[in-house]
């Protein structure tokens, strides 16, 4: 393909697109086979998929309008309020659509495989659970199915790439093939990928994974009722979830404990036990995974964006631009991250921004700003290196616009490095976010929205009692996730650049904003 520099990018894209279509039409069979599997996978989870997409759309709307609101609000409060009202309306509309999507039956939902029910006699059969099985078994079946489904989906995505590579890609080889091949032999990196995927699945399927729901068990326990078999009266009784929670607390002393993998007095199964307020720790943890990973992802995307802009412009123009970027970056890093987060958290208390993403949005933006210097430093070297190459000079002398040069010729060289450092930095974000929620007092994720740090805080005084699970389990989740993210980063680094063997700045960055 000999596109000339004077081609606009769009021309070339269009041409490639038609070509891909031609190739598809010439040999449709592999693509059709792959697509058929896709149809099955989508059909099974249609409702959840639509709901997920709407949730994503909702988050985007809120994020974008929040930014507009902040900028406009700086000039006129009234314009800011108008944007806020528009945001509320849009978000409400999307919520409506989402509940509609929730009514579409899906295979992996709690309605298809219910695990909540009650005994009809002292040892008697279970009523309301999947096939009359014990709640624990029904829940386990759902959990296994969710992870099987996720594994199939991830494999299917990989398979799609293989199909594309073997049947439709024009070139026989790209550097990316080598990257994938090297990852195939990298056990440590594969461990990282598996851990990350397990947690991504946990976050995506959080509502289906828990033995109960956040809405029923945590947010409004007094507007939900459950039935249970009461051994004393020998009959099936009805109780508010809130009251049931009250009697299922894990408080260390006496019989006030519902440990991991046990039932409480109301026939509810708790895979991770209960919290000090009787809520289900597993449901709490998977919902916490969702918010943690959302904030981690958002902040790293933001930081990478800033780092890309800074590295591109400073490497392209050098001189004064570079110097100013260095000073700004150094200024930001001169304040330890956690202190900056604490200050921001304090200063914005009560502001409406702390309502977006349950308080996470404000911190995600702050993380984006705090993390951008270290990310920028890690890609500054590669960016400067590539800016010295001859093809950049050539592009310049052909009169290509700076932005096009940066995007087409410099960015692809920098992105893999961002992936490595980004994945290692996310761990720091997750730890710091947990630390903020641990401190509480208006910092971190707003209660009652689940957050890992808050569970650790609740279990703080029960570490050496029978209720050890409250602080231990969420902490282990964090350790496993952060270890996995670091392994993932190691794997990608070794895959893209087998020469570089560990060491250097990213290690310090990974320990991160600390806490």
């Amino acid at each position: 393909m000999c596109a000339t520099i004077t081609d606009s990018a769009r021309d070339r894209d269009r041409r490639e697109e038609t070509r891909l279509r031609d190739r598809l039409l010439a040999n449709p069979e592999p693509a059709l086979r792959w697509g058929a599997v896709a149809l099955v996978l989508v059909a099974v989870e249609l409702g959840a998929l639509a709901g997920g997409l709407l949730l994503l759309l909702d988050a985007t709307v809120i994020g974008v309008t929040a930014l507009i609101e902040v900028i406009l609000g700086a000039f006129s409060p009234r314009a800011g309020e108008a944007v806020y009202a528009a945001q509320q309306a849009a978000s409400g509309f999307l919520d409506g659509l989402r509940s509609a999507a929730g009514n579409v039956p899906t295979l992996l939902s709690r309605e298809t495989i219910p695990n909540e029910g009650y005994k009809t006699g002292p040892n008697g059969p279970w009523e309301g659970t999947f096939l009359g099985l014990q709640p624990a078994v029904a829940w386990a079946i759902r959990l296994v199915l969710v992870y099987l489904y996720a594994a199939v989906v991830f494999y299917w995505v990989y398979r799609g790439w293989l199909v594309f590579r073997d049947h439709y890609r024009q070139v026989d080889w790209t550097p990316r093939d080598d990257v994938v091949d090297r990852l195939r032999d990298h056990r440590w990196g594969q461990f990282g990928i598996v851990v990350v995927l397990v947690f991504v699945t946990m976050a995506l399927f959080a509502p289906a994974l828990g033995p109960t729901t956040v809405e029923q068990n945590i947010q409004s326990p007094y507007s939900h009722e459950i039935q249970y078999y009461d051994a004393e009266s020998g009959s099936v009784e009805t109780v508010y979830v809130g009251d049931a929670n009250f009697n299922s607390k894990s408080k260390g002393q006496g019989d006030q404990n519902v440990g991991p993998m046990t039932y409480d007095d109301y026939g509810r199964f708790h895979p991770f036990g209960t919290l000090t307020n009787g809520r289900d720790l597993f449901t709490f943890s998977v919902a916490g995974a969702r918010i943690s990973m959302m904030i981690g992802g958002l902040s790293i995307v933001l930081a990478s964006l800033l780092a890309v802009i800074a590295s591109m412009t400073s490497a392209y123009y050098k001189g004064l631009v570079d110097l100013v970027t260095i000073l700004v970056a150094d200024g930001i890093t001169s304040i330890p991250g956690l202190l900056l987060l604490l200050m921001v958290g304090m200063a914005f208390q009560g502001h409406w921004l702390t309502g977006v993403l349950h308080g996470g949005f404000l911190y995600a933006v702050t993380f984006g700003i705090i993390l951008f210097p270290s990310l920028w430093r890690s890609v500054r070297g590669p960016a400067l290196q590539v800016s010295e190459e001859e093809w950049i000079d050539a592009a310049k002398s052909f009169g290509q616009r700076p932005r096009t040069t940066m995007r087409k010729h410099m960015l692809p060289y920098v992105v893999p490095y961002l992936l490595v450092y980004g994945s290692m930095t996310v761990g720091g974000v997750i730890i710091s976010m947990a630390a903020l929620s641990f401190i509480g007092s208006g910092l971190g994720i707003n209660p009652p929205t689940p957050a890992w740090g808050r569970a650790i805080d609740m279990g703080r005084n029960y570490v050496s009692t029978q209720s050890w699970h409250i602080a231990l389990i969420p902490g282990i989740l964090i350790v496993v996730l952060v270890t996995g993210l670091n392994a993932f980063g190691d794997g990608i680094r070794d895959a893209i650049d087998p020469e570089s063997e560990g060491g250097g700045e990213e290690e310090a960055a990974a320990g991160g904003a600390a806490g």
Partner: protein
Amino acid sequence: MNKLLYIAKRLVLGVPVVLFGLTMTFVILYLSPFDPMTAILGRDADPQTARQLAVSLGLRYPNGEPVPLWIQYRDFLIDTVTFNFGQSWVVTRGQSAAQLIWERMPATLWLGIWSVVIALALGIPLGLYAGLRANTWGDYTASFGGIVWRAMPNFWLAVMLAGLLSAGGLLSFYRGFLIPTDVIGTPAALGNLFGSYSLGPVGIPVPDPYNWAVAFKWILPAALVLGSSSMGNEVRIGRTAVLESLNSPYIDTAKAKGVSERVIVGKHVARNAMIPLLPVIMGEFYLLIGGSVLVELIFGIRGLGNLFLSAVLASDVPIIGALTYVFILILVFFNIAQDVAYTIIDPRIGLEGRED
């Protein structure tokens, strides 16, 4: 370039960094929706008192006019840079912030010094060990331990350790071990590290060994937690650095010349391994300052981190501003020290600073 000139240049370049950091602090504290009046007086304050307070804080002129933001900014910069921090608003109302910081400094220093020492004393030998016995079970254990150790949140580790050390916990014997001490709270012996004895006519203080031991044992768990994440870094980076220098040609040369194993490891490998370790060691100070907030909170140590946290939770702006300034100064100083140390360890890196 002359070494002194280099240091002077670095110091000059540090000035805009400090100013930028202070500006960010100002932007967050003064331009955000945060309202100092409510922070001090509560929601329904008497307007008269509020006005007086605003005047005394420099937010309004005595005639009621608001002070323009740029004058507030200028005053904030001048006051902070000249260590004129003003008085605490909330935490200990009326006490000078500088005095408060001075009082809390020893506990944080004690904790910080020991956590660096412990991290270095455990991390570097473990890293060297793992590198020298690469791909053995010992190496795997040390490396994997380092990785997991690094992934553990400080505050969680602190919670677990404090729980295990508490009465009834698995490790509760620790408090009675050798010397009876507590583990929660500020070690009282800290105020008495240098006993009442003094030497010579000028009165050089003599360290009191018993109090040192008590204060050390008391702070040990907290220091272990605080040093943990950097310890993991040191193991990992030490290992790679050792491997790298073991594979370099000059080691082969030395071996061929019959230089003994001990000399090779001690003189060549260890020294070269120090170069990549240096930023990690210096980076510890970042972790220390951020991490001390939580570790001091959990172990109940009355230090600077704890002070910062209570100032933040109470919106005590003068203390927050003063502490931030102190922390910025420390970090900028250590950054410069790191680059200077580089030129001493490895003269090839030169005085222009290392290449990023």
